[in-house]
């Protein structure tokens, strides 16, 4: 009878991603793969100048090119609204952000005009026929100089280039520094990074004038937010707008946004009443998709001879770029919140200054503000240890909170949900055999070889919610439906774009209903199908979206149990869902087939009294707090002091992300995260010259980490469940990135400590490492 069987528990099993076969075989559909009859193609003319007045734009020659349908500039956008920014910060200066430049361009790559043509080649050719008369203005590219009184202004009416200042003070910082045995100071540059998702952005918009509906396919992490914003900006009633995020090839935060191209392409589709498509070129992705990080930090810590860190003081200059994207000014505020990392530091003083420059806007990039904080504190802890002559391991234990202190309110005002920092750190130290490594280091130094051991212990914020702490909505939604044939459809408001929730969510549902995982489909990314959701970012999908789903599933089960109990004349409270059956717990003879109940619920001829047909529930879940994963990373490197080359010999990390749904996918997230974190430490960095030209505008000059450069990752876990969701999960999307960057820099600086090297600015290219040795030698 039972065709469904789930012999083992799925949650916790390292099963392969169900998404992968279609991806590997090229059978999936990204935006650019979607073909609508009569589609027109859009291309954008972009500014070659970082800062210039636009005297005039002549589109006449471009319009005459055969195949060109239209060419528009800002004045053709009519009532189209500005690109939105969701940040609410006291006294934030918010510049206007038109979808196409009005009167002035403020970064290289800013869209100035859009061409629509019958094919993408003609559209591209037409760009060369548009003549823009620019008058170049002095560009503001250096953070330190941008805040000086005599700096050129990016927005004349602002009076300066400061978007906002956010002070944060807790405890008695002045006393802490006055009384401390030592004060250690360091300037850090957390360099600008370019996210480089494998799939560039893309938009396809179709407007059906009869129905009055706008459908937009976009490579986005937030289809619901995009739907609402497009309705408001492009002036289409929201109930007539549908946004579909089809297969999305990565985002890392860069697609957590509403971009000018999404607005312009939608507007063009409405105006032209034909489908319009734009596929971002890689060069555009480099210049006009948001960048990450970009801070200069001036940091002091107060430390006593016994290693106790009593205070931290920081001035943070955060480069916002030339205009705000969705969350631009909010990102560095997360650095403020997480500045004490995983340590008990009672006295904190931060002055965060958000600075406008003639560059692409910064915004969320894997970790978003937390990697910067972790970098600051983990580097400072090492410097403090060196100052007081303590081992980098010991100073960390000295300043950790004890496990029984959680939930732990930290001075920046947030509450760490759960933690046992000693356990994960001890485990990592054990894996590398730390004490013998230190002995080995001493011996090798005697032979003129420079081994470095780097440590990073981190805590971070995941599971983004509750709403009070979020720009707009810290909850998530899910609908769970058991179909008449017993198959289960899950609709989720989160929007996976590589994370693998089609697998992990199905694992959870398979266990909930006691069915085979292949009978579960997880559907996402289509506002026409799902209940409203917030999206996938901030390692929130499982902790928030997964919880919404599990609660909705519980509601369906409750109803289904009533139906089953009615058929068996049993008590619904006694029933369990196992191996394709619903049975009285402990009495396997008293069972009814899961599929039969599903059918009965829809045929609806024999339902218990006071019940309605159907098996579907929707739940909106809002967590009470963020989750705070933590862990310990340890890197072992050897530096070739003749050339500055770094050989990564071991990389160990022990992460605590709460309970684990699928260890294989967790490993994937950790590996990718570490790779991106090491990318920042060793290879990556957006370089703008003084005139605001992006010098690293292609993969020839911007180095993303490659598989062959990565060491073998030795990963392990401790499990400290989160109390803020019933599954006890925390989130793992960003942990690797957050922990790994300072770990690697600490390792290299440790290797070169015999030369007196105290800091090297990232990325640690061989050139910079070699130069640091030369400088230290004098």
């Amino acid at each position, binding site marked *: 009878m039972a065709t469904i069987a789930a012999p083992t528990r799925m949650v916790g099993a390292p099963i392969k991603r169900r998404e992968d076969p279609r991806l590997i075989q090229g059978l999936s559909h990204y935006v650019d793969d979607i073909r609508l009859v009569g589609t027109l193609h859009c291309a954008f003319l972009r500014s070659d100048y970082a800062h210039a007045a636009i005297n005039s734009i002549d589109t006449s020659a471009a319009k005459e090119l055969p195949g060109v349908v239209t060419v528009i500039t800002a004045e053709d956008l009519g009532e189209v609204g500005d690109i939105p920014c969701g940040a609410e910060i006291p006294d934030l200066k918010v510049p206007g952000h038109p979808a196409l430049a009005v009167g002035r361009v403020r970064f290289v790559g800013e869209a100035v005009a859009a061409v629509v043509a019958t094919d993408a080649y003609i559209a*591209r*050719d037409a760009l060369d026929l548009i003549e823009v008369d620019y008058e170049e203005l002095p560009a503001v590219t250096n953070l330190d100089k941008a805040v000086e009184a005599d700096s050129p202004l990016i927005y004349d009416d602002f009076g300066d280039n400061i978007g906002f200042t956010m002070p944060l003070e807790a405890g008695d910082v002045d006393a802490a520094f006055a009384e401390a045995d030592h004060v250690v100071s360091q300037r850090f540059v957390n360099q600008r990074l370019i996210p480089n998702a494998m799939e560039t952005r893309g938009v396809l918009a179709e407007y059906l004038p009869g129905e009055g509906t706008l459908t937009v396919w976009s490579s986005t992490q937030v289809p619901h937010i995009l739907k609402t914003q497009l309705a408001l900006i492009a002036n289409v009633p929201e109930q007539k707008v549908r946004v579909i995020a089809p297969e999305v090839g990565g985002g890392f935060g860069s697609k957590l946004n509403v971009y000018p191209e999404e607005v312009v392409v939608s507007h063009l589709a409405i105006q032209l009443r034909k489908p319009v498509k734009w596929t971002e070129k890689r060069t555009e992705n480099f210049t006009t998709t948001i960048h990450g990080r970009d801070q200069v930090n001036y940091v002091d810590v107060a430390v006593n001879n016994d290693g106790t860190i009593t205070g931290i003081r920081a001035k943070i200059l955060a480069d916002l770029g030339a205009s705000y994207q969705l969350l631009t000014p909010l990102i560095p505020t997360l650095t403020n919140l997480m500045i004490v990392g995983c340590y008990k530091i009672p006295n904190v003083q931060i002055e965060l200054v958000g600075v406008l420059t003639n560059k692409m806007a910064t915004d969320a990039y894997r970790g978003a503000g937390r990697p910067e904080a972790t970098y600051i504190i983990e580097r400072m802890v090492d410097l403090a240890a060196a100052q007081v002559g303590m081992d980098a391991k010991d100073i960390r234990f000295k300043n950790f909170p004890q496990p029984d202190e959680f939930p732990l309110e930290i001075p920046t005002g947030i509450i760490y949900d759960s933690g046992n920092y000693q356990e994960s750190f001890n485990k990592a130290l054990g894996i590398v055999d730390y004490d013998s490594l230190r002995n080995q280091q001493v011996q090798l130094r005697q032979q003129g070889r420079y081994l470095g051991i780097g440590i990073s212990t981190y805590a971070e914020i995941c599971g983004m919610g509750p709403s009070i702490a979020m720009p707009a909505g810290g909850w998530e939604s899910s609908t769970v439906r058991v179909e008449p044939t017993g198959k289960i459809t899950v609709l989720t408001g989160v929007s996976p774009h590589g994370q693998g929730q089609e697998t992990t969510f199905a694992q959870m549902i398979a266990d909930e209903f006691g069915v085979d995982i292949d009978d579960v489909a997880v559907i996402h990314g289509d506002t026409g199908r799902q209940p409203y959701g917030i999206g996938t970012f901030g390692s929130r999908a499982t902790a928030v979206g997964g919880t919404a789903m599990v609660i909705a599933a519980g509601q369906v089960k409750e109803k289904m149990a009533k139906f089953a109990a009615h058929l068996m004349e049993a008590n619904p409270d006694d029933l369990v869902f196992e191996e394709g059956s619903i049975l009285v717990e402990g009495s396997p003879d008293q069972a009814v087939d899961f599929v039969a109940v599903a059918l009965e619920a829809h045929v609806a001829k024999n339902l218990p009294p006071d019940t309605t047909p159907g098996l579907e529930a929707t739940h909106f879940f809002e967590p009470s707090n963020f989750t705070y994963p933590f862990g310990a990373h340890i890197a072992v490197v050897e530096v070739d002091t003749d*050339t500055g080359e770094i050989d990564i010999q071991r990389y160990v990390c022990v992460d605590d992300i709460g309970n684990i749904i699928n260890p294989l996918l967790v490993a994937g997230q950790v590996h990718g995260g570490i790779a991106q974190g090491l990318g920042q430490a060793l*290879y990556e960095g957006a370089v703008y010259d003084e005139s605001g030209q992006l010098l690293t505008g292609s*993969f020839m000059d911007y180095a993303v980490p490659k598989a062959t450069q990565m060491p073998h990752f030795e990963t392990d876990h401790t499990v400290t469940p989160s109390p803020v969701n019933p599954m006890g999960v925390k989130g793992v999307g960003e942990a690797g990135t957050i922990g790994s960057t300072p770990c690697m820099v600490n390792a290299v600086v440790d290797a070169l400590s015999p030369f007196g090297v105290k800091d090297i600015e990232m990325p640690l*290219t061989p050139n910079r490492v070699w*130069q640091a040795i030369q400088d230290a030698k004098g």
Partner: protein
Amino acid sequence: MIPGSFEYFAPTALDEALSLLQEHGDDAKVLAGGHSLIPTMKLRLAEPAVIIDIGRIGGLKGISESDGKLVIGALTTHHELESSDLVQQKVPLLAQTAAEIGDVQVRNKGTIGGSLAHADPAADWPAAILALDADLQIAGPNGERSVKATDFFQGLYETDLGDDEILTAIHVSIPDANTKGTYLKLHQVASGFALTGVAVVLTKSGDTCQSVAVGITGVSDAPYRASAVESELTGAALDAENIAAAAERSVDGIDALEDIHASQAYRQNLAKVYTRRAIESAAS
């Protein structure tokens, strides 16, 4: 990443290609493996009106041995050189150099002739070709000619190759048993090109350096033979001190490049360190 429009020719005979070049002059670009030309076209840094694809011309591909030489067709891919038994037996330096180029996809499509003709200042082949003192065979409207590698490279993307000529083959003398070659390289981490690449061909007589040739790429705007190193070491005992002293001269008279990837001082240092290590390796 959309190139401008162009006219495309795929001649099947060398004469045909040469006459197309004659006809179109400056407007035409020769397409071999496409791994230098096509990226620049996609970025519209190059917008040639005419593309002459020489990929279908017979006789420009393959590796053979003839009169003590390896004859390498210009269209031979990096991968073919990397994996050829003949190359590995006779001139392993070539296989070693090929293995350091780009990635698998680049090595499968890119050609030795295309790379040499393009003359990227950080390409790998020039170092090895210089150190091996290869002869480059060139076909033009006036027939065939041969040019020494040392005369071929003239500057940044500049070679002895005329607009109306096509590089057809590379001739490399097969070294004797006392001769060893090495290519060592530090990759520019983004592009995979050589931040510095040093090829050394060294002939020993006992423990003495009978002769040595050092080709260096990535350091200057054109690859070069480090002749000061060569004269310093020739006839000298191959001990650590002599090798180090000779390697110190690897940038004598050379104006080292400076860019966002490496300072001038660092490139100079790299040239010296890699030259020392390459000589040590070849001498071992």
